[in-house]
């Protein structure tokens, strides 16, 4: 019944639709939300969408994870390891920025009691 999915094209189609929808949900989020935490969440949604998109499009039916084990002795028929490495890096960076942003937000909230970014307007001439 799920043979329908055993087609690279179909999988890619689903991944593109899903990840892009997620991406533009995040896009809508950063465009409309004014709460700092929500904005950071939106950024994370966008990033996650990109990870899905990137990893997903590198999967082709029939390929396996690039790890040897008892049965697999050669690196053939495996998915591209570079996108995975890149995503790993990007996740960590995203995490780091998120943590930093939250700590800024907390500190700012403590000082002013606000987390609405559209009301952050003390920096002006």
């Amino acid at each position, binding site marked *: 019944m799920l043979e329908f999915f055993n087609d690279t094209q179909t999988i890619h*189609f689903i991944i*593109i*639709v899903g990840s*892009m*929808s997620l*991406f*533009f*949900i995040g*896009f*809508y989020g950063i*465009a*409309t939300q004014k709460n700092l935490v929500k904005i950071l969440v939106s950024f994370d949604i966008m990033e996650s969408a990109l990870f899905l998109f990137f990893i997903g499009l*590198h999967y082709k039916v029939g390929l396996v*994870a*690039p*790890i*040897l*084990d008892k049965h697999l002795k*050669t*690196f*053939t028929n*495996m998915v*591209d*390891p*570079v*996108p*995975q*490495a*890149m995503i*790993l*890096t990007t996740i*960590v*960076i995203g*995490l*780091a*920025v998120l*943590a*930093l942003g*939250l*700590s*800024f937000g*907390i*500190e700012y909230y*403590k000082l002013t009691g606000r987390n609405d970014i559209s009301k952050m307007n003390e920096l002006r001439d």
Partner: protein
Amino acid sequence: MNLKKELRLKHIILSLLSSALLLSFLGLLMQVKTNTYKTVGDIFLNLNMQTATANAVTSVVTFFRGIDTVGEVTVLFLATSGVALMLSSTQRTSKKVVKQESFVLHVGSRLLMSVIILFGVYIVIHGHLSPGGGFQGGVVIATAFLLLFLANPNMSLSHGILTLGESLSGSAYVLVALIGLFKMNILLGNFLPHPVGEIGELVSGGIIPVIYILVGIKVGSEMSVIVEYFIKEDYYKEVYDA
């Protein structure tokens, strides 16, 4: 009232815009021709035997694109320092509160913690053999501390040890890179013996497991620091509000 209307209008316009962008992105990405070139990753797969690492992703992360990982570790380190810079000022005042944890929680959390740490260490040192590695293992280790904090908010980690772990592992990582430069005239060169025959063994792959262990220590301590700062922060605020 008027403002509300305006706001709603803005939301509608923006959602329309997002949908329009989504549709055109979909249209665009659907018709993308697949890549006709051999990707770098495919070449890496062919070369991967030479590194004697069973996990190709690990060899890409720590060796082929090793400097990325140095950068990544640095980014995490910088973020940790940034978090510490931001939140450290409130840290001192939060010590007053005394709220004893229950005995069950005390024992249970410590039992679980040791298991989790063990699991984390396993993931770290098998990074070149199986899925996982320094980052993942480090985060698992940090969750152990998260558990401790959840059980007992009064607990505090020894910053001296964490900093030492952070600094030494990070510096050792860079030193490994520099030793590669001196021994093989190439930064991050794999200067340790890595015979291909040993592939799949725990000790194999030359510097790759070494790097992943260092990364594991570093990520573990950094994530613990971040977790501590955020947890204490939260706690501090509750007290402050009450």
